């Protein structure tokens, strides 16, 4: 169970490999990488800057990872979330979950990313031809997060 909030890029393959090394109980590893897309709601994005609430972010992420560990029989888990300025194709976030069985790995990975989208204190600011704009929260993301409510 590891949380990293960092400015620098990450090597997803290295992180996945390191997470699973030597744990022979792992049968399935699910990972999700979020990337900066060039096209967002019709306009072209030159870059995106992610701002976050240092302190609160770490605190909230530790809590949500604990909840995931309560709900699913996970062997390992990892969240890396970047902040700062990124251009299209750059990696923003990595979530990795490892379990004996694939269902727990898939569900917990999706749970964590749905949660990050709506409950972690990050805000995206996009540079488009129209200027800089704060990305609006999306109802579909709220709905995705709500379905995990017990």
């Amino acid at each position, binding site marked *: 169970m590891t949380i990293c909030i960092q400015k620098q890029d990450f090597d997803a393959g290295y992180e996945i490999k390191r997470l699973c090394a030597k744990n022979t109980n792992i049968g399935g590893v699910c990972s999700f990488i*979020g990337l900066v897309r060039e096209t967002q709601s019709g306009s072209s994005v030159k870059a995106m800057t*992610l*701002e*976050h*609430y240092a*302190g*609160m972010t770490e*605190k*909230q992420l530790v809590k949500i990872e604990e909840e995931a560990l309560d709900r699913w029989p996970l062997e390992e888990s990892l969240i890396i*979330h970047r902040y700062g300025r990124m251009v299209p194709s750059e990696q*923003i*976030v990595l979530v990795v979950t490892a379990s004996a069985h694939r269902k727990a790995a898939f569900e917990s990975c999706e749970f964590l*990313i749905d949660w*990050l*989208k*709506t*409950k*972690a*204190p*990050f*805000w*995206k*600011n996009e540079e488009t031809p129209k200027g800089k704009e*704060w*990305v*609006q*929260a999306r109802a579909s*993301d709220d709905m995705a997060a709500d379905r995990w409510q017990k």
Partner: protein
Amino acid sequence: MKILYFAHFREKTNIAEETIDLPNDVTNVETLIDWLVERNDSFADAFVDREHVRVAVNQEHVEFDMPVKVDDEIAFFPPMTGG
């Protein structure tokens, strides 16, 4: 009381962080916002759409009826867009 402003709250108020004395009549988040918007037009503008104001007290996401105390860290921000 320490107050942090993120995203468009920081941009509109031109303040990232400030420390203020707990004003009279401020007992919870709602009354703190009432007090802030009286300061000037920038604050009034930042908080105009209260439905989209999110707040954390001591780094926990809370509702507007949450009591606030003199040594609290309050943060205002729009709905999150991480991930």
